[in-house]
């Protein structure tokens, strides 16, 4: 997966790929239903090959707070949209997610997870979308563990248009 992302970066290492229309910003609220926690999980999406393309590199971080713990995820992965030209767009993704768990009264517990993502969005204007995602997580490095995040938010495609 990391090799895929590196290849994408190398192939797209021209100035055009870094223009604003290759980027989107997602601002989802997140509920974690394994170890209850709520928060925000903003994400930066980059379409290295085509500003209207299917393939996205996704980088995200956030902060979640719950009754027994807080956590800070840092994620790097991809998202593949299935019908990028349509108003309703399903997609899927996967990646790696570093989790810093902060259980109350306990030292920080780090873990590296694989995450998967089942996603869809609906365009409400040329540059704004309402998004929803369900994301199972499996921790392998730093102890086995489960996770399930549900996200609901908005996504802005750059440059912003009316």
């Amino acid at each position, binding site marked *: *997966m990391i090799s895929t992302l590196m290849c994408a970066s190398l192939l797209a290492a021209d100035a055009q790929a870094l223009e604003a229309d290759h980027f989107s910003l997602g601002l989802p609220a997140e509920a974690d239903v394994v*170890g209850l926690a709520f928060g925000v999980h903003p994400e930066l999406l980059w379409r290295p090959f085509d500003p209207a393309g299917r393939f996205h590199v996704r980088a995200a971080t956030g902060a979640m707070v719950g009754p027994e713990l807080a956590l800070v995820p840092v994620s790097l992965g991809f998202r593949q949209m299935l019908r990028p030209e349509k108003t309703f767009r399903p997609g899927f993704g996967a990646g790696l997610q570093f989790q810093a768990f902060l259980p109350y*009264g306990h030292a920080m517990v780090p*873990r590296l997870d694989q995450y998967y993502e089942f996603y869809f969005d609906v365009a409400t204007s040329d540059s704004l979308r309402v998004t929803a995602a369900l994301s199972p997580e499996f921790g392998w490095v730093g102890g086995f*563990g489960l996770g399930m995040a549900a996200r609901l938010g908005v996504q802005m495609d750059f440059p912003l248009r009316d």
Partner: protein
Amino acid sequence: MLRFFPALLLLAPLASAHRPEPAQDELTIAKPKVSHVVGGNFETGDEVFRVLLDYDRPFAMPMEIMVPRDKELENHRPVFAIVGPGLPEPTNEQRLFLPLEVADGHGVFIEYNDRDREVYFERVMRRTMLTSGSLAVHLPSEGLYEVWIFSPDFTVGEFWYGFGVEEDFSGGGWGPIFAEWGLFGW
């Protein structure tokens, strides 16, 4: 990538974790060396949950009892007692403390859960618990041991009783997590 998803799910049972079991009035554990977490809830405070463990040889079994780290459960200190062959005969004080009669010829070990408790982060389900601390209890004989889990001060709330040394999730071992989400998930 998605084609690997089922493979990851198949790998999950190989990972280090405790097999979940909801507590019952009487729960028989078929493979008592396998790591289990028995989760239950004291609703009235006077319940006694019994766990039956049948060993084919003497064994040193790690055990602990936990409650969720929650302000409302600060004074909730459930206790477990192991009753069976070869353990020390209960004192009169212990007999008065226990909720059930110890049968003739059986002894008892009691985890009073009265020390400072550590915070334990349970990584699989991301739960933060207060634990009595793991004890390796020497079960000096083969045969049937009973674990009695009770709340001596009649406090109410959830508990987890953890024990075992081996991993085995065969036969739907993960099922109770989803069936009893309130106990093991959130």
